[in-house]
């Protein structure tokens, strides 16, 4: 299995809805297909929002985790 490094990071900690998703969409526009994006967020709506955004835009949610109050998402650009 090939390893793909995270090339783009979005720190959306402290931002309220919908800014984590807006920042992610802004960053994704500049990314090449197949590259990975890491997002950190504290908005409690993030888990459902990121799942919905990925499903709707065709980008792939490859990993998600929670560390205390911080949600981490790794997304592969469509």
């Amino acid at each position, binding site marked *: 299995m090939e390893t793909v490094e995270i090339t783009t990071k979005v720190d959306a900690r402290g931002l309220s809805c*919908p800014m984590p998703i*807006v920042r992610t*969409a802004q960053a994704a*526009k500049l990314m090449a297909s197949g590259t990975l994006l890491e997002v950190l967020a504290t908005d409690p709506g993030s888990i459902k929002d990121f799942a919905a955004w990925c499903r709707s835009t065709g980008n792939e949610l490859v990993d998600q985790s929670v560390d205390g109050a911080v949600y981490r998402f790794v997304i592969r650009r469509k």
Partner: protein
Amino acid sequence: MDESINLVLFSGTDDKLQAAAVLTAGAAALGKPVNVFLQYWALDAFRAERIEGDHGLAPEAGEEGRGHVEALRIAGQASWADTLRQAKELGGVDIQACSLSMDLLGIEQEDLDPLVDGVEGVTAFYLNAGEGQLIFI
């Protein structure tokens, strides 16, 4: 995914405009075309000289609600105007002033913030909305 989201903004208080900006930005982040139509007091809030001012809250906010909104602002929540600017940067967001409301309030297009793309009537708004969802705030 290309079906439009269409918002008619009537109310000019900061809480309702914030809710509208959140809905707009969320739809833009999903890649949906968003048409925003500004009427009455919402249009008045988009005057260039007033857009960053205090537009108050809906009556149901009360004192307690005012405290919650203020706490979120102090915590760094983007203003509704900033949220709309970021939504427009994503693309696909068109904000139009209702021509009747322009007449009613005596507003010229040069009085409006650059967030507003133009002036149109309700027929043009419906035509652009097509079969997409319509939200009135």
